[in-house]
């Protein structure tokens, strides 16, 4: 991030009066820069920083039937950390993250490499079609997959029945997490693929021409030249996936209408916070849950980044 090409007007000048004029000029430029960033920062502070602080403040209070709001210290946090529903929802998302994200990013990477190699026919069309689900709202994607999974007129059940497999139950409590993983994978493989593909296009070709001369095949080149070269883009997709996974809301809340037995009101942490706040009216506790959720996301992202840095350092010193 240190490569910002700033307009440095302070060229060394001998004459003292000129120097003062330059710094007056610099002041003018600073003022312009602050004016450019002010509109963004006003809304940034009002819509991100203030609500964040307010959530933190709310989470420290308790509302009682008698006596109204009273300061509770960390009682809400203590309660959350002992709340089996909350812990189970975090565990469910951890499982989701460990299973779904590698599948999604593995597919995205495979498609990006396949498109970049230029060896498949019609790769331009394939790229666009794989990306298309990203333009579909999560609400529509979930409704649609809900119908596709459905036992009545879902085509999957129709095909399974005609082959003699019976009717698969995608919406049972045991299978619903997997069904949800499939919906999220369908939605986001294309988006991640585009980020990775763009990074691949920017690798200087001298890197893999050298590998080709050494007799490396396509897979070898992909594994030991291309993938290491787009590491930072892969990291970006991992971080985005962490954020996306832990705040899942649309999918559980819509699947709840067709599979009320499988989706409990604490299926995901975010859905739990919503139900606490708007159904149970436990605003303070919901704020604590939301805050803890943010903390979990920050910690997981940080650990992933740290891990990656350590690995990069080790590799550099090993080389």
């Amino acid at each position, binding site marked *: *991030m240190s490569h*910002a*090409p*700033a307009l*440095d007007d302070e060229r060394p000048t001998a004459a003292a009066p000129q120097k003062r004029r330059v710094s007056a000029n610099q002041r003018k*430029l600073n003022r*312009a*820069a602050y*004016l450019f*960033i002010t*509109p*963004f920062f006003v*809304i940034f502070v*009002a*819509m*991100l920083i203030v*609500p*964040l602080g307010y959530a933190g403040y709310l989470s420290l209070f308790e509302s009682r039937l008698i006596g109204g709001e009273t300061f509770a210290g960390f009682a809400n946090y203590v309660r959350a950390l002992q709340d089996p529903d909350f812990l189970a929802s975090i565990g469910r998302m951890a499982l989701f993250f460990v299973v779904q994200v590698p599948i999604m990013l593995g597919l995205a990477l495979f*498609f990006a490499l*396949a498109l970049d*190699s*230029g*060896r*498949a*026919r019609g790769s331009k069309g*394939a790229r666009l079609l794989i990306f*298309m689900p990203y*333009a579909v*709202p*999560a*609400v*529509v*994607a979930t*409704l*649609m*997959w809900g*119908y596709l999974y459905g036992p*009545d007129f879902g085509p999957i059940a129709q095909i399974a029945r005609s082959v003699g497999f019976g009717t698969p139950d995608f919406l049972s409590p045991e299978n619903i997490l997997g069904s949800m993983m499939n919906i999220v994978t369908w939605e986001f493989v*294309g988006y991640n693929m585009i*980020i*990775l593909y763009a990074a691949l*296009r*920017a*690798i200087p*070709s*001298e890197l893999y*021409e050298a590998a080709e001369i050494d007799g490396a095949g396509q897979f070898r080149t992909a594994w030991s030249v291309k993938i290491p070269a787009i590491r930072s*883009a892969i*990291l*970006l997709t991992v971080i985005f996936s962490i954020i996306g996974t*832990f705040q899942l809301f649309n999918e559980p*809340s*819509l699947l709840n*209408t*067709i599979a009320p037995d499988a989706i409990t009101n604490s299926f995901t942490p975010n859905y739990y916070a919503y139900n606490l706040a708007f159904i149970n009216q436990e605003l303070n506790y919901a*704020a604590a849950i*939301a805050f803890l*959720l*943010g903390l979990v996301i*920050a910690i997981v992202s940080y650990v992933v980044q740290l891990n990656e840095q350590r690995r990069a350092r080790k590799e550099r010193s090993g080389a």
Partner: protein
Amino acid sequence: MTDLETRAAVTVGAKGGRRSPFGRGAATARRFAPERRRNWMLTVLLWLCVLYFILPLWWLLVSSTKDNSALFSTFGLWFGGELSLWENLQTLFTIRGGIFTRWLLNTVLYAGVSAVGATLLAAAAGYAFAKYRFPGSAALFSIILGAIMIPLTALALPTYLLFSRAGLTDTPWAIIIPSLVSPFGVYLMRVYAADAVPDSMIEAARVDGAGEFRIFWQVGLRLLGPGLVTVFLFSLVATWNNYFLPLIMLNSSDLYPITVGLAQLQSAASAGGGSQALFSTVITGSFVSILPLVIAFLFLQRYWQSGLATGGVKG
């Protein structure tokens, strides 16, 4: 296309590469004429995977042409029964006094205003971070980068409480104002502006006596084109597809965007056993609601692909 060109340019200078007597032309030809080494297995595999992404949408298209009984009695992935797309559309647009049109217009309004606003704010801030060195710029920029990681839905609840104190819930502002913030957009615009707007051009404009704001408006914005389209499209999608925020902010169904409206129709359809006619309405509504974005992405693909390239590469 620029990345292709740099790649070709690099090839010419590469030491130890295949030295072709034709220089740049031959090196470029290898990249542009890969047909000779097409791999049919990869092609088949890739297109089989494409089916997974496209079949659900195909089902949606096919199902929106069926009436409710055909939905249950015919095979989902092929047309069957009578073609009732027109009837479905008529039902969709007349149900509850034509409220679907209202939802569609609300979505267009919320998403359009938010996306234009978010793009302009992000462009101004990103341009300033890329092209000026001012006290505190590094610290402010890292705050923005950190904010990319804040789970926005975790903020929806306190934002709702603040808005309800200000009397802004159940108004369009409750959707538009929070959607104006795009930290990732600022990041993208900064990376993009650093390359796309040459310092020499800004200097030249200054020498001509143009003010800083005029330089940004007339020189900067013009050169930021693809970056602007990218940030615009992604803000548009984010607001268009948003369900959580409008769900908690809005009470009157007149103000609903299409996502909340469809979800409401769906729960009515699956709750009321007798009103099964709603299924085909929900499906047709879903199909209609994805068309605008799909078309926008198709027509603007040149822009967003090159814009995203910048963001992903330097990330």
